[in-house]
């Protein structure tokens, strides 16, 4: 047996042994995830991605789907009353809205919007007139733009 064979064998034994050592810990982590998931209602778990990044009222955003028609075009505005864990969480509001409100299309310009979804902002600050405004709670409102 050459030194290369011994080296290859030794490396293999050490590497596989490391996996054997870590196996119980990995199983503990997985079982912890399962227990944690089983303890939460399914509805809560579907909101977890948004809650994780500090968007604290993701269900209110999803509720806008009951107001904005499926072929509607909406713009999103955020403001100081937004239920967010931190300022940087505001970046994720538009991603979450897009995810839960499709096939409704989000537009960047207020002028192109038929609806405005306000996440903690004052709808009057948009300078648009609204036919109606629906309060979804937690400072989240949907306004239908009057054209």
């Amino acid at each position, binding site marked *: 047996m050459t030194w290369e064979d011994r080296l290859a064998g030794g490396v293999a034994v050490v590497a596989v042994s490391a996996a054997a050592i*870590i196996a119980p810990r*990995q199983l503990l982590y997985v079982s912890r995830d399962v227990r944690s998931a089983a303890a939460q209602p399914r509805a809560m778990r579907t909101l977890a991605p948004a809650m*994780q990044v500090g968007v604290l009222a993701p269900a209110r955003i999803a509720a806008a789907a009951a107001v904005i028609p499926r072929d509607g075009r909406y713009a999103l505005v955020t403001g100081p009353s937004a239920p967010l864990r931190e*300022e940087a969480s505001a970046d994720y509001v538009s991603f979450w809205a897009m*995810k839960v409100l499709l*096939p409704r299309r*989000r537009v960047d310009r207020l002028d192109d919007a038929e609806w405005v979804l306000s996440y903690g902002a004052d709808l009057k600050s948009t300078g648009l007139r609204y036919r109606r405004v629906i309060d979804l709670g937690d400072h989240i409102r949907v306004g239908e733009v009057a054209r």
Partner: protein
Amino acid sequence: MTGSALAGTLALAVAWVAVGGALLRASGLLRTARPLLPLLPLALVTGWAFTGVAATVLLMVGLSASPWQLALTWGAAVVLAAATARRRLPRADVLADEPTGTARNVLARAGAAAACGYLVALLVRALVPLGQLHPDAWTQWLAKAMVIYRLGGLDTGAGGFTSQANADYPPLDPALEATTFRFAGTADYLVLPFAHWLVLAAFVGAAAFLLRRRAPAHVVWPSLAMLVLAPKLTSLAGSSLADEPLAIMIGLATICGALWLLDGSAGLAPLVCLFLAAAALTKNEGAVLAALVGLALATGGSRRWVARIAFVLTPLAAFGAWQLWIGAHDVPPNVAHDFGRLLHPGRLADHVSYVRYGATSLLDHLFSPGEWLLIVPATLVLGLVAARRRSRLAPLALGVPLAATACYSIVYWAGNGICTWMPARSCDGTWRDIEWLVSASADRIVAPVVVELAVLFPLLISASSREGRLRRNT
């Protein structure tokens, strides 16, 4: 997970097995005279990769990749495969001179029990998912899948596919997720981890089946257990990050390619091309890695020129087709990178800290035992031994990881920070800016590289001991 979603996902898996089986029969790897059960995992991942490529092509030509369109594509593939099916395998497909002994049997069974037992634990987690996702998973990959599912294809209108983050990334992964949504009958992302688990489990089974052609069970199963138990693979499994399917595609391409180099089985070459094309259509990073694997196979010493050229050209052609789609639909350049900087030495010099930080971070993750155990250092040592012995696997074991790390570091050199694309962030300087980009991606983009090394691990050990035996006998 509801019963109908579970049934729909299983029906999709059956379709993957059927079309994959037909492709394996065409390639000569499946013969009706032998037991079918060991081939089911390989058939599943082959059908899965084929479906991903087919759905991507359908989307790029303006269709929705609906279940009916996919069914027609599968049907066409099965008919074509039946017409070209090979009748014989070029060589025996189970290791003939496998060493035996009690210790070896115990090792093989313990490895198989560890890998399979842990996969069962991951199955339970997949059936009751926690729902917590990496922000990249739902802001990018799932968002694109939702667009394909809800808007019926690669919609280029407001709020469509091209309005999403990293719109220049190819759509294979979201296309597969959208296909799962359609078969499950719901866009609830909690159904996805089960589909991901099916693919991961099939990957392990397929790897075991293929690797056993060249390596004994007491080497293959402990090696696969090491990969399955790696903490980072556990966190990637069912994550809906594209790094997970990319790692599997690259792993399969590497196994088939390595066996093609060692065995000369012509039937493996089309599979290599399929997995390389799928990898190139999964992520931009996947295109780089697929090209490197293709190049490593082409330089592996085989004289079969057609296959060698195909390995190099397939990922380029697949990614090139996606680039044509991007060009035709005026997709804006990715704000996360400024590749123009690479052409200006002065600007590159200003950002030299980026490449240093990026490379260091990549190496930290590659060699971290807390993420990937000892897979990378162990396989690199075996790769060095292989290079010393002029093994055909050396370019795969050494060249690919080195070149991939260099390429990814260069991409970081051209990186822009988060301030340029997420304006609500408070940006207080370029260093902190790039730090976020690297910290948000480096741990994941190394995953396919590690899986590529992990599947080579048993082949390199086997090659080493086989050469040792040969030398002793002569």
